[in-house]
């Protein structure tokens, strides 16, 4: 497995960075997060149309360009750098993977071209209040209804849920609720209530969803649904890990820059060994995060047999690294890093929310232990 980037991938990175530098610079980010607008729809369209970021990893038969997860990982890393508030991860990475690797050809043909064209926001609705992030048995319940299904329950922490035109909902089914089913649900149906949740991290939108007797189409059922859900969550945490690595890289850059110019006691604070060593440790964390994220992205891309454990490692490593780096970013910036005005708190809160989303480092270490045969 190669963990370098191709020239094409390097160009993609440069293109995304250029666009985001222009359109999602910190002042725009701040304006966006404090605005009522859920995300920058102009930028969304530019990304889809001008750079083709949405179509990238979707097969050509569904209107995509047929590249893979490694290309998406480059995009996610760049989005992480600027803390871009965008439904890209939820829609183009997670929801598209659920459709692509599911069993419903009709859903694929219906939704993937729209996702590729940047015409719809879609998201996974799996987490539930009081149920573990990777729990295999949701409290939401689905029952057969003719050719389709009917689903009821409550979902939480649905990323970009309030903007979604398609929800992919997990539910228990069958006798004693032992089966799993992953369903495509139209949030426009009257039985669906989507409520925006006020998030600690203002750069990522969350919603809760309640479902009351809502008609749905199965994307996968039974053991296949279980495997699909695992795979989709592996994709989700790997995508998140790439974002985390990008955010951490930018946080370290900003901190090193500040340590070079901020003077106290007549010298730049970056000449104090304490600051030097802290920055060196931040770099250790960052490189670990990058290695873990790149490896997992490559494993997902190739659908390698160690993709699940690589994804779990990436989530654990990048969550710890992200928190450590963002925390030291605030500390080294001193008072100014504690203000609302400075961007440090946005990196800190993003690090905290990414560390928690889809389950924390402890949960994924336990998963690593299990998958590694401890």
């Amino acid at each position, binding site marked *: 497995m190669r963990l370098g980037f191709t020239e094409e991938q390097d160009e993609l990175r440069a293109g995304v960075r250029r666009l985001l530098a222009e359109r999602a610079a910190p002042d725009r980010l701040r304006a966006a997060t404090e605005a009522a607008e859920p995300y920058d729809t102009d930028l969304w369209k530019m990304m889809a149309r001008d750079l083709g970021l949405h179509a990238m990893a979707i097969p050509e038969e569904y209107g995509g360009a047929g590249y893979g997860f490694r290309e998406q990982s480059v995009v996610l890393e760049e989005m992480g750098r600027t803390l871009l508030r965008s439904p890209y991860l939820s829609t183009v990475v997670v929801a598209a993977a659920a459709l692509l690797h599911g069993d419903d050809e009709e859903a694929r043909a219906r939704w993937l071209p729209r996702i590729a064209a940047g015409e719809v926001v879609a998201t996974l609705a799996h987490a539930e209040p*009081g149920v573990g992030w990777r729990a295999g048995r949701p409290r939401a319940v689905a029952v057969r209804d003719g050719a389709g299904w009917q689903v009821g329950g409550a979902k939480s922490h649905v990323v970009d849920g309030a903007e979604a035109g398609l929800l992919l909902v997990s539910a228990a089914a069958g006798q004693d609720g032992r089966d799993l089913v992953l369903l495509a649900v139209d949030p426009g149906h009257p039985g669906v209530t989507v409520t925006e949740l006020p998030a*600690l991290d203002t750069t990522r939108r969350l919603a809760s969803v309640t479902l009351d007797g809502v008609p749905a189409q199965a994307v996968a059922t039974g053991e296949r649904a279980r495997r699909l859900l695992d795979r989709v969550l592996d994709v989700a945490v790997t995508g998140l890990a790439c974002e985390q690595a990008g955010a951490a890289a930018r946080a370290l850059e900003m901190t090193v820059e500040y340590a070079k110019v901020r003077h106290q006691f*007549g010298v730049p604070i970056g000449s104090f060994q304490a600051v030097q060593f802290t920055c060196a440790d931040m770099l250790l964390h960052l490189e670990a995060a990058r290695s873990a994220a790149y490896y997992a992205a490559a494993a997902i891309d190739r659908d390698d047999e160690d993709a699940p454990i690589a994804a779990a490692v990436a989530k654990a490593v990048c969550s710890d690294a992200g928190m450590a780096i963002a925390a030291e970013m*605030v*500390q080294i910036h001193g008072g100014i890093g504690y203000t609302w005005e400075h961007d440090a708190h946005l990196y800190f809160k993003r690090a905290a929310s990414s560390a928690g989303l889809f389950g*924390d480092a402890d949960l994924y270490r336990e998963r690593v232990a299990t998958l590694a045969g401890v």
Partner: protein
Amino acid sequence: MTIDSGDGRLDRLRAELREWLGEHRRPSLAGMGEYDLEREVWRNPESPLHDDFQAFEQASLAARLVCPQWPAEYGGRGLGELEMAVLAEEFARAGMPRVTRGMGERLAGPAILAHGTPEQRAYFLPRVVSGQDRYCQGFSEPDAGSDLAAVTTRGVVAGDEIVITGQKIWTSRAHLADTLFLLCRTDPAAPKHKGISYVLVPMKDNGITVTSLVTMSGEDAFCQEYIDGARAPLFNVIGGLNNGWRAAMTTLGSERGAVAAVQHLEYEEEWRALVARARELGRDTDPLVRQDLAWAYCQVHVMKATGRRVLASLAAGGRPGAEASLTKLVWSEYHRRLGEIAMEIEGAEGLVRPPGEGYPLTRWQKTFLTSRAETIFAGTSEVQRRIVAERVLGLPKSS
């Protein structure tokens, strides 16, 4: 287990306080923090608690329980650190906040007591006790944080006044105050630590513009002051012109002993609340959570034990040793970690804020965020470690 002095003096004080608190305790004020009291009640006649607070304040003044550590001639009762620790314990036991005078009591007062002239002490201190003067601190500047001696705010003597121009930052409670005690450079030609003066500056109609600084927790907990030709009588210079550094050091070092002795009290309450929260979320049986909570218990217990050691030194007439110098470092780093532990216990819940305008936070989200400031303000952890290494351990100065 309470503080045990070995003589009857503390027991008598304790008995008196229990009786007094039994009589004057106001259930409406119970459980409030001293700062909340000040912010939400003292200045706010609209507050439903205003009358209760006024009655409690008057009773406290009458019992000389406001700034009771100050000599009787200024309105206090000359209590020592041991007595102050008993006081803190008894108020905590009754669940009542003490009527404090904020920065005037904790920070400026000790400097005035130590470095003021008899006339200055007699004039300023009773006004702090009565509540007539409310102080806030103007030490830090945008380019003088850890390196406090780098202040550039200028003070120029003009007749019997000093005229001040510059900028201050990280001022807590400036909106509640009417007097800014600040450091300014009055002799630019002198070496860095010389030529600095410590001045009490009236804030009203005096060329001082106060603006809020919003923090990462969304609160306007700090202010900055743009000072343009503010004037103060020379009488308001503490410790002598160009000789303010020593007074500043008194202010910065004023909290050690007593803080070490009682700081665990609020953390004990916080710890119990976090255990309750863990139980509510069903996380209290998770072995990892139990380790974290036990770690936190150990830290708070150690703070309590350290406080006892400090009090024992004081009771024996000595000065506290190394353990007191570490106080700030210990509690700030503990609390930062506690905030992280709380967020780990909260899990998914911690990612969602309460509904409402602005940026409201749950208790644990607030602890998580505000504790990041505690290792920065009032001497960063880096400055504290340097002080410990060089002054306590006697290691050679780093260059």
